[in-house]
């Protein structure tokens, strides 16, 4: 009985993953924002959405992102039904939420799950930049906080892939408060010995940068990702001049001491496996998992 249910769940998840993978018509081409060359969409999808010509890392959806790092068949989504309900009655917000849900197949801007990476059980989450730019809503903050608390309770390593434009304007101050909520949860998790690997992807800015994304024990980023607190446009307006080339890129952050490493998408899974192993049985109490 339970195996039938498990099979059915697997099928459903497979369908979901398919739906969330961008639909790829076979012969269409598009211009790469990295090198300006025409690249076949099929070619891109074969390369995990990294441009085969210049290495530009295209943003990807949350389900696809998790499918790249998790062991096959181990993805178990958490709190899929948790969503925002327009707390401030903001004009037009409900309709925009509905259309974002239809487009991305997720209820909020983050997908959280339990799964295994290289056999090791982990609590993992990925923000989805296609859903309101991965902006921080109360529901997004809640899903992230629940994931952190679950990881703490079950002594699991925590991995979060960030991608965010900042605060969810339509939820106002309640969006801001999620920064405190998620940071508090991480602090508690950390003080109890929890391992948190934070992976920053393009773009990670605003309130997400100034909260959970910046608090990793290990800080990783994808090549070329834009990472910052204030957006480049706001900074240009403040200082009244053009920003230097490469400002706020992952490479810039590495140089300024805010990252441990820049890891290309194709090497992320193996890097995570290595880091998890280094925190394994010989390392800390997370080895029991």
């Amino acid at each position: 009985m339970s195996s039938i249910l498990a099979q059915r769940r697997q099928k459903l998840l497979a369908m979901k993953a398919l739906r969330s993978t961008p639909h790829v018509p076979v012969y269409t081409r598009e211009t790469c924002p990295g090198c300006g060359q025409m690249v076949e969409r099929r070619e891109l999808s074969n390369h995990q959405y990294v441009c085969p010509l210049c290495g530009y890392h295209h943003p990807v959806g949350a389900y696809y992102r998790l499918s790249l790092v998790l062991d096959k068949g181990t993805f178990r989504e958490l709190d899929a039904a948790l969503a925002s309900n327009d707390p401030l009655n903001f004009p037009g917000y409900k309709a925009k939420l509905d259309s974002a849900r239809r487009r991305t197949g997720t209820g909020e801007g983050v997908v959280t799950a339990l799964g295994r990476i290289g056999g090791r059980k982990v609590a993992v989450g990925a923000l989805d930049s296609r859903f309101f730019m991965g902006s921080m809503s109360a529901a997004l903050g809640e899903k992230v906080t629940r994931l952190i608390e679950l990881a703490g309770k079950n002594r699991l390593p925590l991995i979060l892939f960030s991608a965010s434009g900042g605060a969810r304007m339509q939820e106002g101050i309640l969006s801001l408060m999620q920064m405190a909520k998620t940071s508090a949860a991480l602090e508690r998790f950390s003080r109890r010995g929890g391992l948190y690997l934070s992976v920053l992807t393009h773009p990670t800015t605003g309130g997400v940068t100034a909260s959970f994304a910046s608090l990793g024990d290990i800080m990783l980023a994808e090549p070329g990702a834009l990472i910052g607190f204030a957006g480049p446009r706001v900074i240009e307006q403040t200082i009244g001049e053009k920003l230097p080339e490469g400002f706020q890129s992952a490479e810039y952050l590495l140089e300024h001491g805010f990252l441990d490493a820049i890891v290309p998408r194709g090497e992320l899974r193996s890097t995570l496996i290595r880091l998890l192993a280094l925190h394994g049985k010989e390392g800390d109490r997370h080895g029991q998992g």
Partner: protein
Amino acid sequence: MAKAELTPAQRLALARHPERPGTVEFIQNLFTDFFEQRGDRLCADDGSICGGIARFHGRSVTVLGHRKGRTLEEHVACRFGMPTPEGYRKAQRLMTQAEKFRRPVITFIDTPGAYPGLEAEARGQGEAIARCLALMSSLTVPVLCVVTGEGGSGGALALGVGNRVLMLENAVYSVLSPEGFASILWKDASRSAEACDVMKLTAADLLELGVIDGIIPEPEGGAHLAPQVLYRALDAALARELGELDKVRPAALAAARYQKFRKMGEQALRKERP
């Protein structure tokens, strides 16, 4: 109180009034024996966050807050109250020390936001704010916060993770300045009055949303017209709240603060099939 009801935009103007008393005035008038602590012990001292040790009703406390400056030179030096990462790291240093010596922490919040500059980014503005939030959430001493003027964005919240968060009657507290909000949502910064109406940024709105715990009344026409009246009200409120928090054990203080912020935004959640 038979005061005429002010619009959110009018309150915003009062919150930004150039003569509105701020952190420096509160420290001078409510505290004694203030010793200013400067520097982040890493590279600089950011004047836009002012803090140190002082006496409040006879006991030692750590007090800190945003400083906008009074003169033109001060405005420039403090970037109108917009801190750099050095300011937030100084704040972390002061709060860590407060916990070490078992002093309560009192913060005054009054900033348009963290400084959006090139150097601020290069030195990790996001990381500095995130660490403030994490640290404040876990302190085992009483933490009391008052939004006194503009509470703008993460730059304000970085000093705002308290057991009690109070607001002056005409202060505002929001995810972003109304100008920034209008510019992001409607691509038009001049629609800030309209933004004020939908943002729910007044003290009364925030009390209703459960973001703050109490409102400190201001003299009619705003705090700057009768500062002494405000100081008395603020002093009484701080003394009362601190008296309450004194009764709570250290570990319970951190736990209660965690639970307080854990609930933030609960009303915004719904459960349904996506």
